[in-house]
Structures are given as structure tokens and as C-alpha cells.
């Protein structure tokens, strides 16, 4: 809940809005707020504002608020919303676009989602594959949930689910180069 002057928002929002719209291919005007997306969304209940709310805020131009939300980062891209939306609005794409918009401007630094993404990609960049155990441990260290899921580690170990066969792609260096270039925005495309 809060106060906002719509006539001022209109002005401020136009830039970011059109960028996010272009990136996601979603026209928020299409949405008539039936909430079928949120109702089926696995994370709506645990989100600060659900996916319908995200679109609503974009509709009224409250971009600042949107850029502070967890919702876009919580999105699992499970596609239930898209599958059932009467207007065929690609919410996962919209959420992704919002996350990228934040990352591009470095305003997502606090986001655990971004931290996870980076650790994961470092991992892939280094090895060509992702080592889930390493991943979990580094993530927990970096984000400070030290003991998250440690309870499970021994159980996984005992079932031989942690070891792995140490596979490393022969072309790991190529993968490294490719991932590096794209992450640095020097990908072959465009």
C-alpha cells in the first residue's frame, strides 16, 4: 500500500517500461487483471507481490516499486501462468526481463537470485559442467545461510549422490571462452 501521483509516474516510467516491454515482448496493457496467473503460481503465496501485482504496478507506471520486488526473482518459469492466461501474456519472459533490467543497472546486487546465478555460471565457466555440491556450499557460504541443507549432505553422501564421476568435457576451454565472452557481452551474436 502506498501513495503515488499517477501523472508524475506516467512521465518517469515510460523509459524503463518500454525497455522492459521490448525485452520481454509483453504489452502490459493486454492484461485485464483476472489473476488466473497468480492463482496458479507456485510462489505467489510466498511472494511480496504476486505476478498479477507486478503487471498492475507496471500498468500504473510504478517502476521503482517493481524494481524492489522479490517476485521477478522468485519466478520458477514453470509456465502455469502463460498456459492459462486468457491474453496469452508471457509472464516468465516479463519476470526475466525485469531481473535482467536490474542486473544491467547493478541495482540487483542484493539479490540472492543474482548471486546464485553468478556462482552457478562461474562454476560452469570453470568446469564446463555444474557441480551441485560445490555449488550449494559456495552459495551458502556467500549468502550466509551456512547450514542450509547441510542436514541432507551426509544422507546424500551415504547414497553416493554427492561424489559424481568427475566428468569434465574435453572442450572445457571452449566452453570457458564461450561463457566468458557472452557474460562479458562479447558474444558472437549481433
Amino acid at each position, binding site marked *: 500500500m502506498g501513495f503515488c501521483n499517477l501523472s508524475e509516474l506516467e512521465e518517469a516510467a515510460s523509459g524503463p517500461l518500454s525497455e522492459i516491454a521490448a525485452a520481454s515482448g509483453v504489452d502490459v496493457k493486454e492484461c*485485464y*487483471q*483476472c*489473476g*488466473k*496467473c*497468480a*492463482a*496458479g*503460481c507456485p510462489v*505467489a*503465496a510466498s511472494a511480496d*507481490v*504476486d505476478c*498479477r*501485482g507486478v503487471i498492475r504496478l507496471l500498468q500504473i507506471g510504478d517502476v521503482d516499486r517493481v524494481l524492489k520486488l522479490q517476485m521477478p526473482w522468485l519466478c520458477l518459469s514453470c509456465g*502455469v501462468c502463460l498456459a*492459462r*492466461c*486468457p*491474453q*496469452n501474456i508471457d509472464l516468465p519472459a516479463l519476470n526475466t526481463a525485469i531481473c535482467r533490467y536490474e542486473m544491467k543497472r547493478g541495482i540487483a546486487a542484493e539479490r540472492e537470485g543474482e548471486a546464485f546465478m553468478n556462482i552457478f555460471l562461474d562454476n560452469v565457466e570453470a568446469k564446463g559442467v555444474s557441480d551441485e555440491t560445490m555449488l550449494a556450499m559456495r552459495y551458502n557460504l556467500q549468502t550466509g545461510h551456512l547450514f542450509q541443507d547441510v542436514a541432507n549432505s551426509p544422507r546424500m553422501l551415504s547414497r553416493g549422490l554427492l561424489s559424481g564421476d568427475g566428468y569434465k568435457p574435453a572442450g572445457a576451454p571452449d566452453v570457458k571462452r564461450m561463457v566468458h565472452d557472452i557474460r562479458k557481452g562479447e558474444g558472437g551474436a549481433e
Partner: protein
Amino acid sequence: MSRIGVFVCHCGTNIAGTVDVEAVADAARQMPNVAYAGTNKYMCSAQGQDYIVDIIKEHNLDRVVIASCSPRMHERLFRKVLAEKTDLNPYLLEVANIREQCSWVHKDKQIGTPKAINLVAMAVAKADCDTQLFTHEIPVTKRALIIGGGIAGIQAALDIADAGFPVTIVERKTTIGGKMPMLDKTFPTLDCSACISTPKMSECEAHPLIEIKTLSEVEKVEGYIGNFDVTIREKAKYIDYDKCTGCGMCETKCPQKKIPSEFNQGMSTRTAVYKPFPQAVPSKPTIDADHCRMLTEGKCGVCAKVCPTGAIDYQDVDRVTTERYGAIVLATGYELIDWTRLYGEYGGGRYADVISGLQFERLVNASGPTEGHILRPSDGTEPKTMVIVKCVGSRDPHKGVPYCSRACCMYGAKHAHQFMDKVPGGKCFVFYMDVRTPGKNYDEFYMNTLHEGARYIRGRISKITRRSDGKLVCLGEDTLSGNVVEVDADMVVLETAMVPPEGAKKLAQTVNTQLGPEGFFTEAHPKLRPVETNTGGLYLAGTAQGPKDIPDTVAQAGAAAAKVIGLLCKQSIESNPMVAHVDDSKCSGCGACVDICPYSAVTLVEKTLRENSRKVTRTVAQVNEGLCQGCGACTVACRPGASDLLGFNDEGIMREVEAYATR
């Protein structure tokens, strides 16, 4: 060498204010073939009319150009003047629009006057090429055909027949009445639907001027306004209605009892020889050939044995008749969208207790499968919690249709009211997108339902799952609070979208009119000609034209009837003389005009012609002046230039162009 008279109107100061009318008249006098030019304060006034008439006689003019307001305003009036007060053919008249398109849009005479002169010059040039045109009388067959025997068709039929004209109702099903008798009560007054619709049905049956053809479909329509030749196929009923007394013995004895009843929406069964419901009209049974053992397996014949009048006739065959009608009313109604194909998230029909609104109507109806007790189809228990989902199919371009079905908000409220009325202490949740109640006493009804305790939740149900205890778990969002909500319902009613009935497209082609993008018939003008089509003599009633509720349907049916009566009252109608005309000597019979005509008014015919004093038989195009609406598309398509449009002939337009370009 024609003698053209130019009459320039001052229209008070409307024209004279920004056009120097005298200068225009002077200029006109210099134009070729102009024998007279003069002005008058109000050309359309009685005095102005007399002035025109006198001058025509005095100067024996043979063409008239009137420079005044738009022809859309007074052309008809001036034609009438020529026709009634002079012996000049009314089509030897041109109107130069120097008011709407000149004096009113320009500031001063510097600009207005020369433009007016230009416009007059163009009119004069065209007038010189005008030819005498003659309307002819098209006889009107004083009978109306109504396609579809729902409440719209019934209302139209009664109104037309009461005005004294014979009417035929063609109904696809075994009884007239359509969907209305299936409904329990009608909003907002809650009067019993069958009680008000079935009397009208029997009134039709009893009416001396109404003929009812059930199990029938229109196969072919030829001709035009006033004279449609309609071919109707009346399917075999296997019962001789002249002998049948409707005693119902056959129904009680028919061994084939397990056929799902269409009337009760599959929630009860019927026999193979059956009447869909007691008050059906005609009140005589028919044999369902797909399920009758005699007709499918060739053994049984019980009904024939028990029939006291020997009316059963297994050898019965379809009857095809062709008759002439003056007007046709399309009242083909609607169907409900098949949600089971589209909404897997609602169980796709796997859950017996997720039902459609029409099924609920039958459940709550005293003559329905449960005698009016609201019971779950699955286990026959009374639901304590009911969920109503609106806009199922409607406003859902992704899965259903993009439009709003208009009636659902109201019958949704009605269903909520009926549930809480019949199930004391019952809880009813209505999931809605918007509540649309534009209609007399509609919003009052909705508010009342709210006060009775219906809980309206603004949001679409996302998913319905069935729990082992039989509860239907409905997941939705209350978009107003932003909470994801869940209801453990005993029964769910889906208010499904109205869609065009199967076969509408084919019928549109048969009667040669258009369907809108949604598949409903298109009216001639959304506001000013809502019950006409662009095809003369073809009218629309009810949901054939688009989703609407019963009050609107009946109103529109009455309006359509009025239009039909207006037409049938005439002994004959005047044909529009401004139609395409083919010059046989130039026509190559290529048929380009036949392909391009939107009214199928042009046909290729064998003609014996006289060509350089020899008789030859050739295929040439022929225009049916009754069907031709005078659009002129064919004239442009015609390569040899044999086809021309009377009243807008090629030479006239060319001269008009030239007059402007070279001036």
C-alpha cells in the same frame, strides 16, 4: 445537344455567405449545353420547387443541375419534384454539393466561389450524359420464412402472423422453443421461463397462419427481396403426424431407454421414439433414427405394435419442398461453448460435479432430472458450498472467444440467488472479472444477490482439482486483496460463453449474407439498421446477430417482424434503377463480373443475338436487377467494357473528371 438548367441555392446565408451565388449562375451560363441558370433563396422550399418546375417548362429543359446542399440531403426530394410536377425523368438530375463540401468548409468567397463553379461544372458535364432511368415494380410475395424456432423466431412469427401474413418456421430440432424452455427462471423478475415460453409455443402451433417445420433445414435460397425461392428439407420423422394423436404409448413402451436426454443436458435419459419434453411443439413424438433398434438393426418394432392409430412408418423419407417467400428472418440462436475441450485446468469434463450453467438450470428446474432439488450429479447429495465461475470461454482469446457474452453476469447472479434460496445455509462464491449489469432492474438484482450473501470474488479460477472426499478444490486469486484463495466446493457451475451455432457459416452462404469475425450474422448498420442485413429482405432476430439476453432478443425479434410487415404490406416494391447493365454486343462472356459480384446478381446466359444482320447464339452476362445493388464493381472488372452502371455511367464520370481537370 441537351438543354441543361442550373439552379443555384442561397440556402439563406448558408451558401450565399461564402459563395457568390450570382457569380456561380453567371459562370454556369457560359458552360456547354446550359440553357438556363438562376438562383433562389431556398430551392427546397415549396416556392423554390415551383420556381424549378416553371423554369423547366418555360425553357423546355431536359436536364437539371441543382447546386445546393449534399445530395444525401435533398436529392430524393428534387427527384420527386421532377417525377410528380414535370414530365422530366427524375434521373436526369444532378446535385452539386456547394454547401457541406464548399460553403461550410471555406472562409470567404475568394475560395468558395471558384470551387462552387468547379463543382457545378462537374455536375453539368455529368448531367449531359445522364439517361432516362425507369424503376420497375417488383412483386412482393406476402409470406415470411423464419429460420430458427427459438424465442426470437417464435416472437417474430407471432407478430408477423398476427399482422395477417402467413409464416413458416423452419426448426432444426424436433421441437420449437429453443433454449428458453430449458431455463428455470428468468432474470431479473424470476418468473418461470417455461411458463412464459411454452404458451407462446402452443400459440404458434394453434395459429392458422403459422406453419411449423421441425427437423428441417434450409438447403437452397434463390431470388431476391420479395421473391425468395427457398428449398427446405424436412427430415423423416418415421411418424405420420396426420394419424398420430400424441398419446405417448410408443414412448412408454420403447425398449431403448438409455439415450442421454438433450433437453436435460445429459443428466437424464430418453427413449428412441420421444418428445424432448412434455410441452414440446409439435406435441407429437419423433423416432431418433440413430438409436432406434428397428432403424439401426432392423429388429424391434414395438412402437408400431403398440401405436393405436398405426402412425409409425419406418419407411418414412425426407421431404424436400421449394416455396416462395417475400422476406426471411434469421433467428438461428446460439450454442454454448464446449468447455470440456478447452479447460483441462477445470477437469476437462472429468469431474461430474463441475457443470455448465445450462445444466444447473435443469438441476434447479422442477421438471428437471432432480425435480428441482439441487443435487450433485456424482452422488446425489446436496451441495453445501457452490462455486460459480464466470467468463468461461468469454473474454478468453487464448482458449475461448474474445467477446463478452452479455447474459452470464446476470444468470450467474440468478444461479447464486437460486442456490442460496434452495439450499438454506449454503455458501456461494462467484468468481468474476467484472460485473456487467446494464439493463432495467439488473444492477438491483445483482446487489440483492450480494445482500442475500453471495460472496463475489474478483478473479479467475486457475485450477479445479477433485479431492478424495469429493470436494472440488478451486484455486483462485482475490485480485482486490491480492490473496491467493482456495474454496473447497461441493459443486462448481461454469457460466460458459455463447458461440454461433454449428452450420451458421453454411447458412450464411446459402442465404448470401455475411458473418462477423466471431461467426455471428452481421447487421446492416450497428446503430441505425440493427435488424437488417446488407441483403434486401433478409432480417436478423436474437442471438443469431450476437450474444444477448431474452429481453433484448424478444425486442429485436419484434423489430425484425415490424420490418418484415412493412415490406409485406406493399403490393410491390420499386426496384433501384441505378444498376449494372450489360451491352450484349460487347460482352465476351468471360464471367469476370460473375466472380466479382457480391450479390450473385450476374449470371451467364445463352442469348440469340443479331450481329451484323446474322443471328448468333452466344454466352453473355445478364444482370438480375432485383439482386443488383448498384455497387459497380463488375463494371470495372469488365475487360471489353460491356458492363456499365446506370446513373453513374463511365462516360458521365469521365466527362466529370475532364470538366474539373481542364477547367
